[in-house]
Every structure is written in C-alpha cells, then in structure tokens.
C-alpha cells in the first residue's frame, strides 16, 4: 500500500508515462472509434460560447456531437487536479545539471513545484506573456488540425505524412522560440 502511495506522489519516469500516453491511441479507437487528441476542444469551446448573432461559420455546428471530446478534456482537467493537488509531488523537480545552470543564467529561479513562479504567478507581465503565447498555440494547433497529441503521437503512429510535416513545423517553431525569444524575456519583475 505504501509503495502504491509513493508511486502516486512521485514523478513518473519516461518509460512509464510514454507507454500510458501511447496506449490511449488504441484505447480511444476501442471506446468509440475516436482519434486521440485534445486540441479540438478549443474549437468546441469557441462553438459553445459563440453568440448566435456573431455566427462565424467555422464555429457554427452542433458541438453536442463532440460531447465525448469535451468529456475527455474534462477528464484531463480532473487528472491534473488529482496529480498536481491531491497527489502533488512534495520534492523539487529533478532537472539535469545543464538545465539548472541555464535557468540560473536566464535569471529564472527554481522555487518549488515544476512551474517557474516568475511565469506562472499572478503578475500582469507573466499573464500577458502566457496569454500571447497561448494565442500562437491556439491559432497554430487549429490551423495544423492537431497538436502534440494528435499529430506527434496519433499521426506519427499511424504513419501519416501530414503529421510528420506538422511535427517538423512545431519542433522547428519551438526551437526558434526557445532559443531566440525565451532566454531574453524579462524575468526580474516580481
């Protein structure tokens, strides 16, 4: 029992987490012939909240047909609460020495948890950065019809060339931003 509890609190190694995520691809087909992916819910949330008077064609559809997907997203939120609040890892994140050195060079303090407070805290500068980054993520994932889960995992596992293009794009974009934007953000405001 104690071992099980330890395992629920501790972070999981890649060889446990990866296969669980990968297994969701056949499981979603088995449950209801669904393609594993989460970002379509951004579209559904826009469809739910769109006022009738606005009527952008892309969001004018019966989102109720996608209740399964919204339920999956609700599960992800619930899973996040369980893993991050109920069974929160009490220890600091175990990063590589190279990464620790880099973050101290960037002026990003590693203060408890697995998210830097300087970017995820209640400061208007960080909220603005996270919001603008989110706009890119939302726009890009809908334009590419998928994100890391739908393209990198489902798409590559089903050998789809479109997904390979998307993965090349998202990794190239990520490398560019991580090397030429992120190190130069102002991290000294709090």
């Amino acid at each position, binding site marked *: 029992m104690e071992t099980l509890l330890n395992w629920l609190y501790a972070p999981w190694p890649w060889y446990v*987490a990866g296969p669980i995520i990968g297994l969701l691809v056949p499981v979603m087909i088995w449950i209801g012939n669904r393609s594993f992916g989460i970002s379509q819910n951004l579209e559904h949330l826009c469809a739910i909240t769109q006022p009738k008077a606005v009527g*952008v064609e892309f969001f004018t559809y019966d989102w109720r047909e996608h209740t399964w997907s919204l339920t999956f997203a609700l599960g992800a939120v619930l899973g996040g609460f369980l*893993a991050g609040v109920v069974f929160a890892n009490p220890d600091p994140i175990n990063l590589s020495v190279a990464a620790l050195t880099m973050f101290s060079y960037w002026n990003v303090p590693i203060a408890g948890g697995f998210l830097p407070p300087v970017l995820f805290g209640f400061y208007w500068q960080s909220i603005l950065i996270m919001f603008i980054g*989110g706009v890119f993520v939302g726009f*890009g*994932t809908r334009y590419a019809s998928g994100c890391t889960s739908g393209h*990198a995992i489902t798409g590559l596992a089903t050998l789809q060339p479109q997904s390979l293009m998307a993965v090349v794009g998202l*990794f190239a974009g990520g490398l560019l931003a991580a090397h030429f934007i992120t190190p130069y953000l102002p991290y000294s405001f709090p």
Partner: protein
Amino acid sequence: MRYLPYLIAGTLFGFTMIKSEAASWYRIMEMFYFQSFHMYGIMMSAIVTAFIGIQVMKRLAGRSSLEGSPMQIPSKGPGRYKFILGGLIFGLGWGVIGLCPGPIFALVGMGSIGAIAALAGALHGTWLYGVVRNRLPK
C-alpha cells in the same frame, strides 16, 4: 454514463501529463536545449506503443467498438501548407510558454494562473483562426 470511458481516459491523460512532468515549463526548455532524454523518451515510447496498438487495432478493424461504431484507423484530412505553417506558429508559442494543449488543460485543473491565461489566449487564437481561415494557404 455513456461518456464515462472518455472521462476515465481523459483523467489518465491529465494525470500522466502532470506525473511525467510533460506539463513542466522547465522540462520543455530542457528538451529544446537537448539537455535531457526525458521528454524524448516519453514521445518515442508513446509513439512506439501507439504504433503497436494501431497494428493490433488494424486486425480488429470492422469490429464494433464499445459504442457500437465499426473500428477504423484515424486519418488526417487533406492539405499541405497548413500542417507546416500551423505547426510553426504553434511551436513559436510552445517554445515560450512551454505548454501544449494537453498540459494546459491538466494545469487548469491545478488552478495554475499561467495555464488559465494560456487557455484564454489559446481560445482567442482559435477564434482568430476561425475568422481568417479562408484567407490562409491550405
């Protein structure tokens, strides 16, 4: 009740996003600087597992799923530029906020301010795409 399997699958997904630290901004930066195998290990083992799972499902294709529809292998729609350009735009955001949509949802469950801001941004980005999509290269 009909949607319970999706709720369970989603919960497992969100739980794993946090427990694997794939939802960690630090881990994503570590990945983009090739300083650790962790994230690559997750992605590669997920793809290999999904690939094997798909091969099994192919043998079962045509049989009915739990919901009753015949099982088939998912496929992405047509297009060319949208995948690479959409991916690039997505990546430019990902490389700064260190979050893709899965972790965003999981972190919202933790009440993370940054993730709530990112979700608000992602919804605005999605909206913007819906408005301008007909003018973008396909």
